[in-house]
């Protein structure tokens, strides 16, 4: 029997029972739909988180020093020289002050750092320019706002119009040097204005201390971030005679961590969630497959005379087996295709509610599900295998029917 004949016979048999075929594949549709929906949403969440943390999140180490005074830029630079695996380390200071324009006053959260911060955090410039090394050296009164900050202070003014304006921060006037896309993940919430200013400006003018309390280190691309973190901690412990890294007290003084661990944790939670979904979908597919087998067995019983006729007309066992198996595979693939379409539709429909239910820190953008081609391919493969496995027994039963008994079947 030629493949084209097989395909024609299969189509003819399935289309003769459209209603029943449609009901039979429901289990498969739901199973595959659930997998595609969850995979797409989880992939969307992962991508959104990568965007939220920035492209370099997995390479960034944060060091907080709680009990070390007079930690200078020189001390910071010795870490880069002593601990292998760093491209650079920059200081980070955090401060709070009131910020005001002629018409508006708000609380401000200021991050003081170096220009390389923009690079390590993949911060994009929207208008104006980034502050420079020179601003750093001279502790210039300049700052960067983000679009949310501009909106908070000036209402619906274009970011470019805010550039060059003066704002009062604490007791001094500051020049808005540039507008970036986002200072941090909390920018869009509440009335607090988040800004970034040169480290020296923040530490000297706002904090009144030059001792570095927090640093961010960018590791080399080929460095093992966990090893670098451990080495950094060890170096600081040794250098300041703080004892062992296992010492709980010492760990409070020197705290080293990275967004990678957060990302790993989130990814691990997502993977666990995905595994649960795969198991649930697997169960659904087995139930769907049993539905297909049941329908195929009913089909064999209803078509016993047809099977007998085909055998009388020259059909071999293989011809009968392949026809029934192909019917089963086609049903499963049809279920898979509808499942994929349903899954894509459901992913877009549920992305918003599910994204917020799962506690995702939003980037301000609505969650966009990512439709992965390989998931679709896998769905089709899984359906083919399901069709093969659950269609095999009915097909074998059909092929083994006695032609005489089949022809005489009432």
């Amino acid at each position: 029997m030629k493949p084209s004949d097989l395909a024609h016979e299969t189509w003819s048999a399935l289309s003769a029972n459209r209603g029943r075929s449609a009901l039979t594949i429901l289990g498969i549709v739901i199973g595959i739909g659930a997998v595609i929906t969850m995979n797409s949403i989880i992939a969307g969440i992962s991508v959104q988180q990568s965007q939220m943390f920035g492209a370099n999140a997995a390479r960034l180490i944060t060091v907080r020093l709680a009990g070390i005074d007079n930690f200078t830029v020189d001390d910071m630079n010795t870490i880069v020289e002593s601990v292998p695996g760093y491209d650079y380390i920059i200081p980070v200071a955090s401060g709070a002050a009131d910020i005001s324009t002629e018409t508006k006053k708000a609380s401000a959260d200021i991050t003081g750092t170096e220009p390389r911060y923009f690079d390590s955090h993949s911060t994009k410039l929207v208008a104006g320019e980034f502050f420079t090394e020179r601003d750093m050296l001279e502790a210039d009164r300049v700052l960067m706002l983000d679009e949310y900050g501009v909106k908070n202070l000036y209402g619906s003014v274009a970011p470019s119009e805010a550039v060059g304006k003066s704002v009062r921060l604490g007791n001094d006037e500051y020049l808005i040097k540039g507008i970036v896309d986002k200072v941090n993940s909390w920018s869009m919430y509440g009335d607090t204005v988040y800004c970034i200013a040169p480290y020296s400006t923040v530490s000297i003018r706002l904090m009144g201390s030059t001792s570095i309390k927090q640093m961010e280190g960018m590791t080399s691309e080929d460095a093992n971030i966990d090893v670098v973190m451990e080495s950094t901690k060890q170096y600081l412990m040794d250098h300041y005679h703080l004892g062992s890294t296992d010492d709980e007290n010492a760990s409070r003084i020197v705290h080293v961590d990275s967004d990678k661990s957060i990302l790993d944790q989130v990814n691990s939670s997502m993977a666990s969630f995905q595994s649960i979904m795969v198991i649930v979908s697997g169960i659904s597919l087995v139930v769907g497959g049993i539905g297909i087998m049941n329908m195929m067995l009913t089909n064999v019983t209803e078509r016993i005379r047809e099977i007998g006729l085909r055998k009388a007309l020259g059909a071999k066992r293989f011809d009968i087996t392949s026809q029934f198996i192909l019917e089963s595979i086609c049903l499963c693939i049809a279920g898979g295709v509808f499942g994929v379409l349903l899954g894509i539709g459901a992913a877009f429909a549920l992305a918003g509610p599910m994204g917020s239910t799962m506690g995702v820190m939003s980037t301000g953008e609505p969650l966009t599900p990512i439709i992965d081609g390989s998931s679709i391919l896998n769905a089709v493969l899984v359906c083919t295998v399901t069709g093969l496995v659950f269609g095999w027994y009915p097909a074998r039963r059909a092929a083994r029917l006695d032609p005489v008994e089949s022809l005489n079947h009432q």
Partner: protein
Amino acid sequence: MAKYVLDAQNVHRIYESAAGYTAALRGVTLQVPRGEFLCVMGPSGSGKSTLMNILGGLDRPTSGTYKLEGVLMNDLTDDELAEMRGQRLGFVFQRYNLLERATVMRNVMMPLIYTDVPKSERESRAYKALRVVGLPEDYYDHRSNELSGGQMQRVAIARALVNNPALILADEPTGALDSATSELVMNLFANLAEQGKTIVIITHDPETCAWGDRTVHIRDGRLFSDEEERALVEAALKSHAGVQARRGNT
């Protein structure tokens, strides 16, 4: 080329069941030369269907030999038997056995999908077979369940002809038809026989057998020629008359 299209020697078919053994055929010997139109006639339960199944390669004899065009069918595997059926046999059933969901053309071409006949040739063969049975071309795209009984049987005969078989086996081909349609169908078989087709019809109907070249009778799994059957009937009638006479005297 074998002398006989069909050559069955001392064929027995015994069924085994929980109740014991049942002999459906008891030493059947039958030879059909090429081009003969044979009618096997017998009452219900005489072994007609069992004989048809064995002649059609749907079943195997318990003992004895059966050759189709010189090929010993006893030893063939299921798939080899299927190949023989597909290439050398044409079946016509009492209930037509057409696929309702398929068109007339697809029904007629069905035996060819299990052979190596190229697709391009299948349609022309189906057209030819349908023209032989005289079904108007308007019906070729109709589904089989849109046809009358006579038309369906013509389609079934066309399907039996399409693979140009060595033997056409028909089981009660007029059993489901009215007398006028039966005559049309039997006329068709007679025409095919005239064209040199070897035909075996199995029936209980003497009128159907009147169309054949030869009739053999089957009774209790045994075959009898016309003469033997007549002698048996006459002997039975005499015996019956004797019994009646004795009853009259008493």
